[in-house]
C-alpha cells in the first residue's frame, strides 16, 4: 500500500502525463476475465477503478474549466465499463447462490396484486419498521377494485386486442409488400 502524504496527489495523473495530448491506455476488463477472479480481487479492483474514475473526472472538469480538450476521454468509458462488468459478475454470483439456497431469483420478494383500476401488476415488498395493520399510509392504498370497474377492464381488453390485431395485420401487409418487391421471398416461404 502507498503512504499518502495527505493523499491529494491521487486525484491527479502521473506528473509525466501532465500536458500530454493523448495518454495510452489498455482495454477495459472483460466479463470473462472478471468471472475468473475471487471476491477479494474484485473488491480491490473496484476501489482501484473508483480512484482512477475520480482522477479522470477531476481531469475532465479541469479541462472544461481551462477550455481545453481532455486527453484521451475513452479512459473514462473503459473504467465505467469495467466497473459495470464487476457489478454484473457480483450480481450473477449472488443470484446463483440465492437460486441454490432458496429457489428465488429476485432479491426482494413480491406478488401479483390488483390496483384500484383493475390492472394486475408485480408488487415488490418493501421493508417497514411497523406491521401493516399499524401502517396508516399502507392501509390507505387499495389493492382491490370495486365491481363498477369491470366495464373499464373490458374496454381496456378490447383496446389491447384491437391494437394487437392492427399490429399483426400491418406485419402481414408489410410482408406481402416485400414479397411483391422481392418475389424470391414468397417462393422460399412456400417451399418451407
Amino acid at each position, binding site marked *: 500500500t502507498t503512504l499518502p502524504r495527505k493523499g491529494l496527489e491521487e486525484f491527479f495523473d*502521473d506528473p509525466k502525463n501532465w500536458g500530454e495530448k493523448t495518454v*495510452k*491506455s*489498455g*482495454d477495459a*476488463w472483460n*466479463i470473462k*476475465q472478471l*468471472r*475468473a*477472479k*475471487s*471476491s*477479494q*480481487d*474484485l*473488491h480491490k479492483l473496484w476501489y482501484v477503478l473508483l480512484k*482512477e474514475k475520480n482522477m479522470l473526472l477531476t481531469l475532465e472538469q479541469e479541462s472544461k474549466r481551462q477550455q481545453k480538450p481532455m486527453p484521451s476521454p*475513452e479512459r473514462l468509458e473503459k473504467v465505467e465499463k469495467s466497473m459495470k*462488468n464487476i457489478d*454484473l459478475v*457480483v*450480481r*450473477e*454470483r*449472488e*443470484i446463483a*447462490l440465492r437460486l*441454490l*439456497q432458496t429457489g428465488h431469483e429476485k432479491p426482494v*420478494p413480491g406478488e401479483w396484486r390488483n390496483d384500484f383500476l383493475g390492472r394486475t401488476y408485480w408488487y415488490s*415488498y*418493501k*421493508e*417497514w*419498521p*411497523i*406491521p*401493516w395493520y399499524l401502517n396508516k399510509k*399502507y392501509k390507505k392504498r387499495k389493492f382491490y377494485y370495486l365491481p363498477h370497474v369491470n366495464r373499464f377492464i373490458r374496454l381496456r381488453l378490447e383496446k389491447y386486442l384491437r391494437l394487437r390485431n392492427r399490429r399483426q395485420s400491418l406485419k402481414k401487409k408489410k410482408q406481402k*409488400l*416485400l414479397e411483391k*418487391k*422481392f418475389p424470391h*421471398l414468397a417462393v422460399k416461404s412456400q417451399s418451407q
Partner: protein
Amino acid sequence: MRLSALLSLAARPKLPKGYRHGTWRPGTAAERLRNPPGLRRKKIFVEPISREDWKVFRGDTVQVLTGKDAGKQGMVTQVVRARNWVVVEGLNTHYRYINRNAKYSSTYIASEAPLLLNQISLVDPEDRKPTEVDWRYTEEGERVRVSLRTGRIIPLPLRQRRDGIVPEQWIDGPKDTSVDDALDKTYTPSLKTFEEEIMDAMGIVETRRAKKSYWY
C-alpha cells in the same frame, strides 16, 4: 450469463421509427446534420437478410458485377447491413468538392458510392474469380464460408479494433495489468456471498443484530 445478455440488449441506442440509414455512423456530427430528429423520408424497401445469413464483412475482397467498374475487384471498407450496402475502396466512384470555406476553394476528391449485395460477389481466394458462397460447418464444428463452385473455404477477414490497437504490438503502460495477471484464475466457488467472503478476509465480525422489520 442471462443478466449480462439482457442488459447488453437493452443498452443499444434506439433509432427513430422511419430512420433511413446513410453511409455515416449514427452519433457522428455528419449523420446528425443529414438526419435531424423529426425528419421523415420515404421508406426504402430492403431485402431482409438475417444476421446468420450475412456473408460479406469489412476487409473482404469482392468483385463488382454491374455498374461503371464492373469486373473489378476491391476491398470492402464499409458495410451498412440495414440497407444491404457495401462500400468498396476506389470502385464505383463519383467526384465531389470537399472542405470549402471563405478562404479555401475546395478540394476535388473521388468518393465511393455504396453497392447493393446483388451487385457484389465474393471472390474465391486462389482462383480470384467470383463465386456463390454458402455457410457450412467444418469437421471441427466451425462455421465457415464455402464457395459453391470450387469447395474452398473463404477465410474471414482480420477484424481490426475500433481504437486502432494491435494486440500483438501492445506494450503495457504503468496502470495496465499484465496478461498473466489478468487471465489468472483466483475464483474458488463457495457457498458464501460476496459480502461474507470480504468480511472473512478483512476480519470484520458483525455483532449487531438487526431490528425486526416487516416486509409487505
